[in-house]
């Protein structure tokens, strides 16, 4: 193109095009940087998922205290034993003390085959985990596994999934092969229930006040600011608050002794009630903020039309505003509860139990939760604990997924119902 007068200020055509070349290259480099960063973020998620799944499946090299073939000649596995052999082995090989306890719980003759198999495995065969491999390692390090078995006489490898129905149903145990998460799972569900009962009405109520009633004055602005601040307070601080207030100061209430006289006093106020209320305080600001967002989304015309037919403020809120925002409020609440379900630090700080094998039976029980269980197992360096930690993580993530999909499902259902009514 021919240049006009004065355009020489930007150099000759060749200057312009070489500058343009540089600018284009610059742009390209940064474009690549942006794509790279984004890929990195996606990669992190993939690696995270991979590192968990990898530990859930794989080879475990085990060694038995007593080989099954030494109990019944020619049979390699306890599951191959017939009824008579099982009963016989149980009666003759269990130590006297254990035998007495077992017979006391339920006579051996009345126990099922499956029950006896696990009895024999637990007390006679006593398999121990020597080393485990992740899924990837199991595929790529066959040689190393074989060498390892060769070095350890009597050991054998089994490919297993660490996440099994019995893992979910079993008590806690110091033995990773028998440990399960039932107690922790129940603890988590109890805690969530208390958190919901405590935080939902207060959170929604506060949000209604702030969104529907509050006029723009100093006090209300302060309330709002304070709620935003609370939502950003580190969760561990809530743990300290719960420890001082619920566990220590309100011990008679949270341990249940004020209504029941004496209770399990080993709990010392470190009960489900304390834990649930602590997490309730933690999620309260989140529920308030989410509910406010839900109420903000309700068009003002709806309120005006309700006032227009002579409704009072509360009638307007109760009959018009809340019904149209209930889906969003519930979704927001479930998001907040998901946060509570994954919280670890505050519960550790208030002194949740790290090892209990009795199921929680009510709000005054001691408890442990899934995240705490994961914390305990992850913190142990031995291989098999890492595998069951991963299995527990998968269980937790599935639980979270279930919660969130329920939220989406109910929301869609309510939305559809609203549309039909409209």
């Amino acid at each position: 193109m021919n240049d006009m007068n004065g355009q020489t200020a930007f150099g000759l055509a060749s200057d312009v095009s070489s500058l343009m070349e540089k600018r284009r290259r610059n742009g390209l480099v940064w474009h690549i940087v942006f794509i790279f960063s984004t890929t990195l973020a996606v990669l992190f998620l993939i690696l995270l998922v991979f590192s968990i799944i990898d530990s859930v499946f794989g080879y475990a090299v085990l060694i038995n205290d007593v080989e099954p073939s030494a109990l019944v000649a020619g049979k390699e596995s306890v599951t191959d034993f017939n009824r008579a052999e099982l009963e016989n082995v149980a009666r003759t090989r269990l130590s006297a003390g254990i035998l007495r306890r077992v017979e006391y719980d339920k006579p051996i003759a009345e126990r099922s085959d499956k029950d006896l198999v696990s009895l024999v495995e637990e007390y006679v065969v006593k398999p121990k985990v020597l080393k485990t491999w992740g899924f990837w390692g199991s595929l790529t390090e066959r040689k190393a596994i074989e060498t390892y078995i060769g070095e350890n006489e009597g050991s054998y490898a089994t490919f297993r999934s660490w996440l099994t129905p019995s893992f979910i149903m079993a008590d806690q145990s110091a033995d990773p092969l028998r440990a399960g998460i039932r107690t922790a799972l129940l603890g988590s569900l109890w805690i969530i229930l208390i958190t919901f009962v405590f935080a939902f009405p207060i959170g929604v109520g506060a949000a209604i006040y702030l969104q529907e009633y509050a006029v723009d004055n100093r006090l209300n602005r302060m309330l709002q600011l304070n709620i935003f601040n609370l939502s950003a307070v580190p969760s561990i601080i809530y743990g300290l608050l719960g420890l001082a207030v619920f566990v220590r100061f309100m011990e008679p209430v949270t341990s249940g002794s004020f209504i029941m006289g004496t209770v399990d006093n080993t709990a010392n106020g470190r009960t489900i009630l304390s834990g649930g209320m602590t997490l309730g305080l933690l999620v309260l600001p989140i529920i308030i903020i989410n509910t406010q967002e839900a109420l903000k989304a309700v068009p003002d015309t709806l309120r005006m039309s309700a006032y227009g037919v002579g409704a009072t403020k509360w009638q307007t809120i109760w009959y018009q505003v809340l019904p149209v925002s209930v889906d969003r409020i519930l979704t927001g609440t479930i998001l907040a509860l998901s946060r509570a379900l994954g919280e670890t630090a505050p519960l550790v700080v208030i002194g949740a139990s790290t090892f209990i094998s009795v199921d929680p039976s009510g709000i005054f029980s001691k408890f442990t939760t899934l995240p705490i269980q994961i914390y305990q197992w992850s913190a142990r360096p031995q291989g098999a604990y890492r595998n069951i930690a991963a299995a527990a993580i998968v269980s937790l993530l599935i639980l979270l997924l279930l919660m969130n999909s329920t939220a989406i499902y109910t929301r869609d259902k309510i939305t559809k119902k609203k549309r039909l009514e409209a």
Partner: protein
Amino acid sequence: MNSLSLAQVLQPGVEQSESQVKKTVLKLEHVNIHYGSFQAVKDATFDIYEKHVTAFIGPSGCGKSTVLRSINRMNDMIRGSWIDGKILFNGHDLYDEQVDPVLIRRRIGMVFQKPNPFPKSIYENIAWGARINGFKGDYDELVEQSLRQAALWEEVKDKLKQNALRLSGGQQQRLCIARTIAVQPEVILMDEPASALDPIATGRIEELILELKNNYTIVIVTHNMGQASRVSDHTAFFMVDDKRTGYLQEYAETEQLFLNPQHRKTEEYISGKFG
């Protein structure tokens, strides 16, 4: 470039009325513009002449802004928009695969409806475009020159370091014009540059346009018929068909179009019957 286009040769009427030969800078040939599956403009064919002011008028939604944006490829920024037909700038097809839209925009600048200065100092607002385009001269001089050309110098010369957002709306718009001038374009596109301004500020912008016409080719979209007749030499009147697709109804010298419209629709529109 050859200054006489085929269209001009074939339009002796236009030639006669001008004392001097008009040079075509931009040439639109059968331009169709779409947003996704919606066709916004069909078959626009007309020329824009050097150092003239061309006005686009027409009812809202008839594609004036769309055509204007296609001239410096700002439509590229809108997802889903695509164009066929040709737009020739000094004989070169703007939509050739080889063409870098970034270079086009330096040669064909744009002023928007709402003043949009950068949240930086007045000085920086003007220097920025020149800097990224590799301007080698004296920046102080460039800033002063540009502000003078935009008739803003006297008002801001003592506060060049002040944030541009503190200027009034009219001043901001003149700053945006100055900013466009600073990269020394050949063509300045203006999309309703005065519609967000008060009458006094509008008057100053109009004066400015008449002033700038000596050095630049200007295309201005306006919904104000008075403005079109005051500032422009040529006027393009766009209409919409029943599918809401815009098309060029009439294109003529402004005086002719306003005094002697060839189409009934044009007559109705300029007399304020609709739009």
